């Protein structure tokens, strides 16, 4: 027992010794110091596995002597591992809080001491009536809560930083100008007009065209796949459509710039008298629409498949044709999910940057002409932040205000969709 437990200590001490001697001398992250840190991490894993094994073996031995034990040996091993992990986490947190007084060697030493103490304490809990299984269950729940907290806190953090920086922007630039001015003309020297309206208009215009393309095509292919296609057709067509989602947006951008843009200009815009710009809202919208088709079709397909077969049977049994069944029974039942799918596609379209830069250009304009070059909020965020200006002028801080506005628009869209879904939801089951 003792020898089994001393092995991980020995291993860790070995790594630590090697690391300590080097670390003091190396100030910056050279390749060897990175290597030592990786070895340290590996050492922790080995240590934890060892703690688990020792705990389990000890419980096994106890089990052969005691008649009844509450938990299986592996749960006692898991408890030992949990305490050891807790010790190591404490050690590393302490090391960071105290400002890394002893370098990597200090971290290793502290991990050894606290991790070892934790493991020993974990071993001391191994008793016949200790509910290691329940204990592990609770730890798992805590871990799950922590993970969901990470997502929530990240969102909160992002929004907070956006709000703060936007506040700074409005100290330097009047909010009324920002929201209601129809001119976007930033000049890095002062005296720029930073009206968001042309950008919001461009964003909505491009996204609307994208959705007009993607929603009917996506929804109808989803209906075909879910209701009509045979298994073998579905097995081929569904992945083929999903490939569209895997193409990098820059490739779509190329496609817009080189093929779609000139095509639309030569065959639609010029003959119909809409101007002769090869980058246009229409180009970006069409290409973006194709990009988001899989978002609509793939999700809708899953949702339509989830509608119970009994509803279809009921409708077909009344003498409805398959398309009548789809229209009056399946789609209403699947509506909440379909709206969700469309919304996801809309968020993708609103946040898309690359296709707009290459397809619609970078000129901020307020125009109804779909063959005119326009630009969107995201493109302007990129262009305001590229270059080396410091974050003090309204011309750079405006990016945060743009980001916050964009975020508010998508949030509003979500809320509206939720309300619509709740109102028109037709419950099944």
């Amino acid at each position: 027992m003792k020898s089994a437990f001393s092995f991980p200590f020995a291993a860790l001490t070995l790594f630590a010794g090697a690391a300590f001697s080097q670390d003091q001398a190396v100030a910056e992250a050279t390749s060897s110091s990175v290597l030592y840190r990786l070895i340290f991490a590996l050492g922790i894993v080995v240590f934890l596995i060892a703690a688990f094994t020792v705990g389990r073996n000890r419980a096994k031995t106890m089990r052969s002597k005691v008649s009844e034990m509450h938990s299986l040996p592996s749960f006692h091993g898991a408890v030992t591992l949990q305490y050891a992990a807790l010790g190591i986490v404490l050690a590393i947190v302490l090391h960071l809080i105290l400002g890394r007084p002893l370098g990597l060697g200090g971290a290793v030493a502290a991990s050894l001491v606290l991790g070892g103490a934790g493991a020993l304490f974990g071993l001391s809990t191994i008793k016949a009536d200790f509910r290691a299984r329940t204990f592990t269950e609770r730890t798992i729940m805590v871990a799950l809560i922590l993970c969901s907290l990470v997502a929530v806190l990240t969102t909160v953090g992002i929004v907070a930083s956006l709000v703060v920086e936007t506040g700074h922007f409005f100290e330097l630039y009047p909010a009324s100008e920002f929201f209601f001015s129809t001119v976007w003309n930033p000049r890095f020297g002062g005296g720029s007009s930073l009206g968001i309206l042309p950008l919001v208009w461009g964003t909505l215009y491009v996204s609307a065209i994208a959705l007009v393309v993607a929603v009917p095509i996506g929804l109808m292919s989803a209906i075909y796949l879910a209701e009509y296609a045979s298994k073998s057709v579905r097995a081929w067509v569904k992945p083929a459509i999903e490939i569209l989602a895997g193409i990098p947006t820059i490739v779509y951008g190329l496609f817009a710039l080189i093929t779609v843009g000139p095509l639309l200009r030569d065959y639609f815009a010029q003959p119909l008298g809409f101007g002769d710009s090869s980058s246009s809202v229409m180009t970006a919208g069409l290409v973006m629409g194709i990009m988001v088709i899989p978002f609509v079709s793939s999700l809708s397909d899953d949702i339509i498949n989830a509608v119970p077969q009994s509803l279809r049977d009921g409708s077909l049994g009344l003498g409805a044709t398959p398309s009548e069944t789809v229209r009056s029974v399946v789609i209403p039942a699947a509506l909440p999910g379909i709206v969700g799918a469309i919304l996801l596609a809309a968020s993708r379209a609103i946040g898309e940057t690359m296709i707009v830069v290459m397809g619609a250009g970078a000129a901020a304009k307020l125009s109804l002409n779909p063959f005119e070059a326009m630009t969107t909020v995201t493109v302007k965020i990129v262009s305001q932040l590229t270059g080396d200006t410091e974050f003090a002028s309204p011309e750079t801080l405006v990016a945060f205000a743009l980001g916050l506005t964009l975020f508010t628009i998508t949030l509003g869209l979500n809320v509206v969709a939720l309300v619509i879904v709740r109102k028109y939801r037709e419950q099944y089951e």
Partner: protein
Amino acid sequence: MKDMNMESRVLIQSNKIEARKVQVYYGTNHAIKDVDVDILDKTVTAFIGPSGCGKSTFLRCLNRMNDTIPSCRVEGLITIEGEDINDPRVDPVQLRAKVGMVFQKPNPFPKSIYDNVAYGPKIHGLTRNKAELDDVVESCLRKAALWNEVKDRLQAPGTGLSGGQQQRLCIARAIATSPEVLLMDEPCSALDPIATAQVEELIDDLRSQFSVVIVTHSMQQAARVSQRTAFFHLGNVVEYGETTQIFTNPKDPRTESYITGRIG
């Protein structure tokens, strides 16, 4: 005198559906073998038999619902009033309007009670205006013994009703297309005894207008609601005749074993 009546009743009742040498295959599995059954008009016919014996499958042949299962293949002759339902000129969609179906689990559409019943008349254009549709909905709900319970909330969702009410709503929905035959696939298996009694009473009322075919696992139910009974076993019809005769004096030893609970 009594015998005379019995005799004349049988004579008046014509065959609504005739099935001859019906075979059903699921892929390579031969599920129904050589089934010959005549369904009488204005009669309740019960199909009984152990699980997997093919009674539901045969029922689904009668309105060609098996067409919706890709691996399913039906052979043999099934006629409704002398017309072959598997003839390529027959539109299965029209056939299903004529041969209504009620399923095992209540499956109201996620729509209002009114729209559930109005669904069939709407898609088949059976009514000319809203007032006529209202009348159809009301009369069907009355026939299904549901009107008094739902008349004040016709716009409430059909899925909000209790299980027994949902099943009666499905029956109302099925009779709204004015079918000639009503197929019921274990209509009471998801219901409690009270709702079952209501549905059984309803089936007895419906007999005056439709020919009803019911699949059931409950032999008491078959005895209570049906006039004729067919016993299915391993894809064959073992015995078919008057319900009283099947239950009191079965000819085939397998039928006797099943109704006394020895096989099944």
